[in-house]
Protein backbone atom coordinates (compact mmCIF):
# COMPACT_ATOMS: atom_id res chain seq x y z
CA UNK A 1 0.00 0.00 0.00
CA UNK A 2 1.11 3.55 -0.53
CA UNK A 3 0.30 4.76 3.02
CA UNK A 4 2.59 4.41 6.02
CA UNK A 5 1.96 0.70 6.27
CA UNK A 6 4.25 -1.82 7.91
CA UNK A 7 4.51 -5.06 5.99
CA UNK A 8 4.98 -8.33 7.90
CA UNK A 9 8.59 -9.29 8.45
CA UNK A 10 9.86 -11.90 6.04
CA UNK A 11 12.10 -14.73 7.16
CA UNK A 12 12.98 -17.88 5.26
CA UNK A 13 9.95 -20.16 5.09
CA UNK A 14 7.32 -17.45 5.64
CA UNK A 15 4.39 -17.36 3.21
CA UNK A 16 4.50 -15.05 0.22
CA UNK A 17 3.26 -11.55 1.05
CA UNK A 18 -0.13 -10.92 -0.59
CA UNK A 19 -1.57 -7.45 -0.90
CA UNK A 20 -5.35 -7.23 -1.18
CA UNK A 21 -6.83 -3.91 -2.26
CA UNK A 22 -3.58 -2.17 -3.23
CA UNK A 23 -3.57 1.62 -2.98
CA UNK A 24 -0.79 2.05 -5.56
CA UNK A 25 -1.70 4.33 -8.46
CA UNK A 26 0.10 4.12 -11.79
CA UNK A 27 0.14 7.08 -14.15
CA UNK A 28 0.95 6.46 -17.80
CA UNK A 29 2.96 9.41 -19.10
CA UNK A 30 4.10 10.50 -22.52
CA UNK A 31 7.86 9.99 -22.69
CA UNK A 32 9.91 13.17 -22.79
CA UNK A 33 12.63 11.56 -24.87
CA UNK A 34 12.10 9.16 -27.73
CA UNK A 35 11.66 5.61 -26.41
CA UNK A 36 11.76 2.25 -28.22
CA UNK A 37 8.32 1.13 -29.50
CA UNK A 38 7.78 -1.53 -26.84
CA UNK A 39 8.57 0.78 -23.92
CA UNK A 40 5.80 2.28 -21.80
CA UNK A 41 6.59 4.98 -19.25
CA UNK A 42 4.82 5.17 -15.89
CA UNK A 43 5.01 7.36 -12.83
CA UNK A 44 4.73 5.13 -9.79
CA UNK A 45 4.69 5.72 -6.02
CA UNK A 46 8.08 5.72 -4.30
CA UNK A 47 7.32 2.60 -2.32
CA UNK A 48 6.77 0.42 -5.40
CA UNK A 49 9.49 -1.86 -6.70
CA UNK A 50 10.12 -3.45 -10.11
CA UNK A 51 8.48 -6.67 -8.95
CA UNK A 52 5.45 -4.74 -7.71
CA UNK A 53 5.09 -3.02 -11.08
CA UNK A 54 5.37 -6.30 -12.95
CA UNK A 55 2.79 -8.06 -10.78
CA UNK A 56 0.47 -5.05 -10.86
CA UNK A 57 0.42 -4.86 -14.64
CA UNK A 58 0.20 -8.60 -15.15
CA UNK A 59 -2.50 -9.33 -12.60
CA UNK A 60 -4.70 -6.22 -12.77
CA UNK A 61 -4.28 -5.11 -16.38
CA UNK A 62 -3.16 -8.48 -17.87
CA UNK A 63 -0.37 -6.77 -19.76
CA UNK A 64 2.59 -9.09 -20.47
CA UNK A 65 5.74 -7.49 -19.09
CA UNK A 66 9.23 -8.41 -20.20
CA UNK A 67 11.36 -5.96 -18.23
CA UNK A 68 10.94 -3.09 -15.79
CA UNK A 69 13.52 -0.46 -14.98
CA UNK A 70 12.97 2.30 -12.44
CA UNK A 71 14.58 5.55 -11.47
CA UNK A 72 13.78 8.28 -8.98
CA UNK A 73 13.35 11.79 -10.31
CA UNK A 74 14.50 14.43 -7.85
CA UNK A 75 12.48 17.63 -8.20
CA UNK A 76 13.67 21.06 -7.21
CA UNK A 77 13.66 22.56 -3.74
CA UNK A 78 15.03 25.82 -5.12
CA UNK A 79 11.77 27.60 -6.00
CA UNK A 80 10.55 30.19 -3.55
CA UNK A 81 7.06 31.40 -2.78
CA UNK A 82 5.80 34.94 -2.07
CA UNK A 83 7.25 34.84 1.46
CA UNK A 84 10.66 33.61 0.22
CA UNK A 85 10.17 30.14 1.72
CA UNK A 86 11.62 27.32 -0.27
CA UNK A 87 8.94 25.24 -1.97
CA UNK A 88 9.68 21.62 -2.71
CA UNK A 89 8.23 20.00 -5.77
CA UNK A 90 7.57 16.39 -4.78
CA UNK A 91 9.89 13.67 -6.09
CA UNK A 92 8.50 10.81 -8.07
CA UNK A 93 9.60 7.42 -9.35
CA UNK A 94 9.52 6.59 -13.05
CA UNK A 95 9.22 3.06 -14.40
CA UNK A 96 10.13 2.06 -17.96
CA UNK A 97 8.18 -1.10 -18.77
CA UNK A 98 9.04 -3.18 -21.82
CA UNK A 99 6.20 -5.28 -23.16
CA UNK A 100 6.62 -8.96 -23.97
CA UNK A 101 5.52 -10.89 -27.05
CA UNK A 102 6.71 -8.17 -29.43
CA UNK A 103 3.86 -5.83 -28.53
CA UNK A 104 4.19 -2.12 -29.16
CA UNK A 105 2.65 0.94 -27.60
CA UNK A 106 2.33 4.45 -28.95
CA UNK A 107 1.04 7.14 -26.60
CA UNK A 108 -2.22 8.35 -28.21
CA UNK A 109 -3.38 11.89 -28.78
CA UNK A 110 -6.01 12.36 -26.09
CA UNK A 111 -6.91 15.95 -26.92
CA UNK A 112 -7.75 15.97 -30.63
CA UNK A 113 -9.26 19.07 -32.20
CA UNK A 114 -13.00 18.64 -32.47
CA UNK A 115 -15.24 20.89 -34.57
CA UNK A 116 -18.22 21.70 -32.44
CA UNK A 117 -21.49 22.50 -34.14
CA UNK A 118 -23.62 24.61 -31.82
CA UNK A 119 -27.38 24.26 -32.18
CA UNK A 120 -29.37 27.17 -33.61
CA UNK A 121 -30.27 29.95 -31.15
CA UNK A 122 -28.17 28.60 -28.31
CA UNK A 123 -26.09 30.76 -26.00
CA UNK A 124 -22.80 29.25 -27.21
CA UNK A 125 -23.61 30.08 -30.83
CA UNK A 126 -24.33 33.71 -29.98
CA UNK A 127 -21.11 33.92 -27.98
CA UNK A 128 -19.13 32.47 -30.89
CA UNK A 129 -20.70 34.99 -33.30
CA UNK A 130 -19.91 37.85 -30.96
CA UNK A 131 -16.26 36.72 -30.64
CA UNK A 132 -16.00 36.44 -34.42
CA UNK A 133 -17.31 40.00 -34.89
CA UNK A 134 -14.85 41.32 -32.31
CA UNK A 135 -11.95 39.64 -34.05
CA UNK A 136 -13.07 41.06 -37.40
CA UNK A 137 -13.21 44.56 -35.92
CA UNK A 138 -9.68 44.25 -34.50
CA UNK A 139 -8.18 43.37 -37.90
CA UNK A 140 -6.95 46.26 -40.05
CA UNK A 141 -8.45 47.15 -43.43
CA UNK A 142 -7.23 44.56 -45.99
CA UNK A 143 -7.28 47.19 -48.71
CA UNK A 144 -4.24 48.90 -47.13
CA UNK A 145 -2.12 45.89 -48.10
CA UNK A 146 -0.34 45.42 -44.78
CA UNK A 147 0.71 49.06 -44.38
CA UNK A 148 0.33 50.21 -40.76
CA UNK A 149 -1.85 53.07 -39.53
CA UNK A 150 1.27 55.11 -38.66
CA UNK A 151 1.56 56.14 -42.27
CA UNK A 152 -1.35 58.56 -42.53
CA UNK A 153 -3.91 58.17 -45.28
Amino acid at each position, binding site marked *: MAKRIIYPLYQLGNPQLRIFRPTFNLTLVRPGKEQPPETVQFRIPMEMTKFDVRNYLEK*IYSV*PVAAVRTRIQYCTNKKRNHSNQRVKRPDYKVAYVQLAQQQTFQFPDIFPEKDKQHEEGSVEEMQEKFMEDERQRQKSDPRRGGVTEWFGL
Partner: protein
Amino acid sequence: MSAAVTSRLTAAVCRQFQRVVTVSSYAQPQSATQAFSKLHLCQRSQTYDSWWFRSSVNNRALHTSCVRRGLEEFFDLPENWGEQTVKSGAPWTAKQLRVKSNEDLHKLWYVLLKEKNMLLTLEQEAKRQRLPMPSPERLKKVERSMKRLDTVVTEREDALRLLQTGQERGRPGEWRRNVFGKTFWYRFKEHPIPWYLNSRYKRRRFFEPSHVAPYTRLSLEKYLRSKIRKEKREKRSQERLATIFPKKTALA
Protein backbone atom coordinates in the same frame (compact mmCIF):
# COMPACT_ATOMS: atom_id res chain seq x y z
CA MET B 1 -31.47 9.78 -4.74
CA SER B 2 -33.38 7.46 -7.04
CA ALA B 3 -32.70 9.76 -9.96
CA ALA B 4 -29.02 9.76 -9.10
CA VAL B 5 -29.09 5.98 -8.81
CA THR B 6 -30.79 5.50 -12.15
CA SER B 7 -28.55 8.03 -13.86
CA ARG B 8 -25.47 6.34 -12.43
CA LEU B 9 -26.85 2.98 -13.39
CA THR B 10 -27.57 4.06 -16.94
CA ALA B 11 -24.20 5.76 -17.24
CA ALA B 12 -22.45 2.71 -15.86
CA VAL B 13 -24.49 0.33 -17.99
CA CYS B 14 -23.93 2.33 -21.17
CA ARG B 15 -20.25 2.43 -20.46
CA GLN B 16 -20.31 -1.25 -19.67
CA PHE B 17 -21.85 -2.15 -22.97
CA GLN B 18 -19.48 0.05 -24.92
CA ARG B 19 -16.47 -1.43 -23.25
CA VAL B 20 -17.69 -4.99 -23.33
CA VAL B 21 -18.54 -4.66 -27.01
CA THR B 22 -15.13 -3.23 -27.89
CA VAL B 23 -13.29 -5.92 -26.02
CA SER B 24 -15.50 -8.89 -26.84
CA SER B 25 -13.40 -9.62 -29.91
CA TYR B 26 -10.55 -10.55 -27.59
CA ALA B 27 -12.58 -12.07 -24.75
CA GLN B 28 -13.45 -15.72 -24.38
CA PRO B 29 -17.10 -16.60 -25.07
CA GLN B 30 -17.81 -17.87 -21.54
CA SER B 31 -16.53 -14.73 -19.86
CA ALA B 32 -18.74 -12.53 -22.09
CA THR B 33 -21.90 -14.41 -21.10
CA GLN B 34 -20.83 -14.45 -17.47
CA ALA B 35 -20.43 -10.70 -17.73
CA PHE B 36 -23.97 -10.18 -19.06
CA SER B 37 -25.56 -12.45 -16.48
CA LYS B 38 -24.01 -10.47 -13.66
CA LEU B 39 -25.16 -7.14 -15.07
CA HIS B 40 -28.03 -6.67 -12.65
CA LEU B 41 -26.02 -7.30 -9.50
CA CYS B 42 -23.73 -4.35 -9.04
CA GLN B 43 -24.54 -0.73 -9.65
CA ARG B 44 -21.14 -0.05 -11.04
CA SER B 45 -19.27 -2.19 -13.54
CA GLN B 46 -19.04 -5.61 -11.90
CA THR B 47 -19.18 -6.87 -15.44
CA TYR B 48 -15.88 -5.17 -15.97
CA ASP B 49 -14.10 -7.47 -13.62
CA SER B 50 -15.20 -10.99 -14.51
CA TRP B 51 -12.89 -11.08 -17.49
CA TRP B 52 -10.21 -9.00 -15.90
CA PHE B 53 -9.71 -11.53 -13.16
CA ARG B 54 -8.94 -14.37 -15.53
CA SER B 55 -5.24 -15.10 -15.88
CA SER B 56 -3.41 -13.42 -18.71
CA VAL B 57 -4.53 -15.33 -21.77
CA ASN B 58 -2.25 -14.31 -24.57
CA ASN B 59 -1.61 -17.82 -25.80
CA ARG B 60 -0.56 -16.72 -29.24
CA ALA B 61 3.16 -17.16 -29.62
CA LEU B 62 3.76 -14.61 -32.36
CA HIS B 63 1.99 -11.30 -31.72
CA THR B 64 3.39 -8.43 -33.69
CA SER B 65 0.35 -6.13 -33.84
CA CYS B 66 0.25 -2.87 -31.88
CA VAL B 67 -1.49 -4.04 -28.71
CA ARG B 68 -3.00 -1.67 -26.21
CA ARG B 69 -5.59 -4.17 -25.00
CA GLY B 70 -4.55 -3.89 -21.37
CA LEU B 71 -3.06 -0.43 -21.68
CA GLU B 72 -6.30 0.89 -23.25
CA GLU B 73 -7.72 0.87 -19.76
CA PHE B 74 -5.38 3.69 -18.86
CA PHE B 75 -7.39 5.92 -21.19
CA ASP B 76 -11.01 6.92 -21.42
CA LEU B 77 -13.36 5.73 -24.15
CA PRO B 78 -12.22 7.20 -27.50
CA GLU B 79 -15.51 9.14 -27.87
CA ASN B 80 -14.62 11.20 -24.81
CA TRP B 81 -11.22 12.28 -26.11
CA GLY B 82 -11.25 16.03 -26.80
CA GLU B 83 -14.51 16.71 -24.96
CA GLN B 84 -14.68 19.61 -22.55
CA THR B 85 -16.82 17.78 -20.00
CA VAL B 86 -17.48 14.11 -19.40
CA LYS B 87 -20.61 13.03 -17.57
CA SER B 88 -20.16 10.98 -14.44
CA GLY B 89 -22.44 9.82 -11.66
CA ALA B 90 -22.38 10.40 -7.91
CA PRO B 91 -19.76 8.72 -5.74
CA TRP B 92 -20.54 5.60 -3.71
CA THR B 93 -21.79 6.27 -0.17
CA ALA B 94 -20.87 4.13 2.81
CA LYS B 95 -24.53 3.22 3.26
CA GLN B 96 -24.69 1.75 -0.25
CA LEU B 97 -21.40 -0.05 0.16
CA ARG B 98 -22.42 -1.73 3.41
CA VAL B 99 -25.10 -3.63 1.52
CA LYS B 100 -22.58 -5.22 -0.85
CA SER B 101 -20.86 -8.56 -0.30
CA ASN B 102 -17.11 -8.87 0.22
CA GLU B 103 -16.54 -10.20 -3.29
CA ASP B 104 -18.43 -7.26 -4.78
CA LEU B 105 -16.44 -4.80 -2.68
CA HIS B 106 -13.19 -6.45 -3.69
CA LYS B 107 -14.08 -6.18 -7.36
CA LEU B 108 -15.31 -2.62 -6.95
CA TRP B 109 -12.00 -1.68 -5.37
CA TYR B 110 -10.16 -2.70 -8.53
CA VAL B 111 -12.67 -0.93 -10.75
CA LEU B 112 -12.16 2.26 -8.78
CA LEU B 113 -8.40 1.77 -8.83
CA LYS B 114 -8.36 1.48 -12.61
CA GLU B 115 -10.63 4.50 -12.96
CA LYS B 116 -8.30 6.48 -10.74
CA ASN B 117 -5.30 5.45 -12.82
CA MET B 118 -7.12 6.53 -15.94
CA LEU B 119 -7.97 9.91 -14.45
CA LEU B 120 -4.41 10.44 -13.25
CA THR B 121 -3.02 9.71 -16.72
CA LEU B 122 -5.55 12.15 -18.16
CA GLU B 123 -4.57 14.80 -15.64
CA GLN B 124 -0.87 14.42 -16.36
CA GLU B 125 -1.40 14.52 -20.11
CA ALA B 126 -3.58 17.64 -19.77
CA LYS B 127 -0.79 19.31 -17.79
CA ARG B 128 1.70 18.26 -20.46
CA GLN B 129 -0.42 19.67 -23.28
CA ARG B 130 -1.32 22.76 -21.22
CA LEU B 131 -5.03 22.14 -21.64
CA PRO B 132 -7.78 21.96 -19.02
CA MET B 133 -8.60 18.49 -17.78
CA PRO B 134 -12.20 17.51 -18.64
CA SER B 135 -14.28 17.08 -15.46
CA PRO B 136 -11.64 17.00 -12.73
CA GLU B 137 -14.31 16.36 -10.08
CA ARG B 138 -14.26 12.69 -11.11
CA LEU B 139 -10.98 12.25 -9.27
CA LYS B 140 -12.46 13.49 -6.01
CA LYS B 141 -15.49 11.24 -6.46
CA VAL B 142 -13.32 8.18 -6.99
CA GLU B 143 -11.10 9.02 -4.04
CA ARG B 144 -14.07 9.44 -1.74
CA SER B 145 -15.61 6.17 -2.93
CA MET B 146 -12.35 4.36 -2.24
CA LYS B 147 -12.05 5.92 1.20
CA ARG B 148 -15.59 4.87 2.09
CA LEU B 149 -14.99 1.36 0.77
CA ASP B 150 -11.92 1.17 2.98
CA THR B 151 -13.92 2.26 6.04
CA VAL B 152 -16.60 -0.34 5.36
CA VAL B 153 -14.02 -3.12 4.96
CA THR B 154 -12.16 -2.11 8.12
CA GLU B 155 -15.49 -2.05 9.99
CA ARG B 156 -16.17 -5.60 8.89
CA GLU B 157 -12.65 -6.71 9.77
CA ASP B 158 -12.86 -5.12 13.23
CA ALA B 159 -16.22 -6.74 13.91
CA LEU B 160 -14.91 -10.14 12.84
CA ARG B 161 -11.79 -9.82 14.92
CA LEU B 162 -13.76 -8.74 18.00
CA LEU B 163 -16.08 -11.68 17.63
CA GLN B 164 -13.37 -14.24 16.99
CA THR B 165 -10.60 -13.12 19.32
CA GLY B 166 -11.88 -10.21 21.40
CA GLN B 167 -8.95 -8.01 20.26
CA GLU B 168 -9.90 -4.39 19.64
CA ARG B 169 -6.94 -3.59 17.40
CA GLY B 170 -5.31 -5.56 14.62
CA ARG B 171 -1.84 -4.36 15.48
CA PRO B 172 -0.78 -4.90 19.14
CA GLY B 173 0.51 -1.98 21.19
CA GLU B 174 0.58 -0.47 24.66
CA TRP B 175 0.61 2.88 26.49
CA ARG B 176 4.11 4.16 27.11
CA ARG B 177 5.73 7.34 28.36
CA ASN B 178 8.24 9.06 26.14
CA VAL B 179 11.28 11.14 27.17
CA PHE B 180 9.18 14.31 27.33
CA GLY B 181 6.79 12.83 29.87
CA LYS B 182 3.96 12.45 27.37
CA THR B 183 1.91 9.24 27.41
CA PHE B 184 1.25 7.84 23.96
CA TRP B 185 0.09 4.60 22.29
CA TYR B 186 3.18 2.73 21.14
CA ARG B 187 2.43 0.32 18.28
CA PHE B 188 4.59 -2.78 18.17
CA LYS B 189 6.79 -3.56 15.21
CA GLU B 190 8.11 -6.94 14.08
CA HIS B 191 11.82 -7.52 14.59
CA PRO B 192 13.94 -10.56 13.82
CA ILE B 193 15.91 -10.14 17.08
CA PRO B 194 14.72 -9.62 20.69
CA TRP B 195 14.67 -6.07 22.08
CA TYR B 196 17.63 -6.54 24.42
CA LEU B 197 19.88 -7.23 21.39
CA ASN B 198 18.51 -4.27 19.43
CA SER B 199 20.93 -1.39 20.15
CA ARG B 200 18.89 1.21 18.24
CA TYR B 201 15.76 0.31 20.23
CA LYS B 202 17.63 0.53 23.53
CA ARG B 203 18.75 4.07 22.69
CA ARG B 204 15.06 5.05 22.45
CA ARG B 205 14.02 5.74 26.03
CA PHE B 206 10.47 4.94 27.16
CA PHE B 207 10.68 6.52 30.58
CA GLU B 208 10.88 10.13 31.61
CA PRO B 209 14.12 11.20 33.35
CA SER B 210 13.77 12.59 36.88
CA HIS B 211 14.37 16.22 35.79
CA VAL B 212 11.38 16.07 33.43
CA ALA B 213 8.85 15.11 36.13
CA PRO B 214 8.17 18.74 37.30
CA TYR B 215 7.29 19.73 33.71
CA THR B 216 4.85 16.84 33.40
CA ARG B 217 3.16 18.07 36.58
CA LEU B 218 3.04 21.64 35.28
CA SER B 219 1.52 20.63 31.95
CA LEU B 220 -1.07 18.51 33.78
CA GLU B 221 -1.97 21.51 35.98
CA LYS B 222 -2.26 23.67 32.87
CA TYR B 223 -4.60 21.20 31.23
CA LEU B 224 -6.79 20.92 34.35
CA ARG B 225 -6.91 24.68 34.72
CA SER B 226 -8.04 25.17 31.13
CA LYS B 227 -10.70 22.48 31.56
CA ILE B 228 -12.08 24.10 34.71
CA ARG B 229 -12.00 27.52 33.08
CA LYS B 230 -13.99 26.22 30.13
CA GLU B 231 -16.63 24.68 32.41
CA LYS B 232 -16.90 27.87 34.44
CA ARG B 233 -17.23 29.94 31.29
CA GLU B 234 -20.06 27.72 30.07
CA LYS B 235 -21.83 27.92 33.42
CA ARG B 236 -21.45 31.70 33.57
CA SER B 237 -22.89 32.19 30.08
CA GLN B 238 -25.85 29.90 30.94
CA GLU B 239 -26.56 31.90 34.13
CA ARG B 240 -26.39 35.17 32.21
CA LEU B 241 -28.86 33.85 29.65
CA ALA B 242 -31.09 32.60 32.46
CA THR B 243 -31.24 36.13 33.97
CA ILE B 244 -32.05 37.65 30.56
CA PHE B 245 -34.58 34.93 29.61
CA PRO B 246 -36.00 33.59 32.91
CA LYS B 247 -37.95 30.35 32.87
CA LYS B 248 -41.22 31.89 34.05
CA THR B 249 -41.57 33.94 30.84
CA ALA B 250 -40.73 30.91 28.69
CA LEU B 251 -43.48 28.81 30.25
CA ALA B 252 -46.01 31.62 30.06
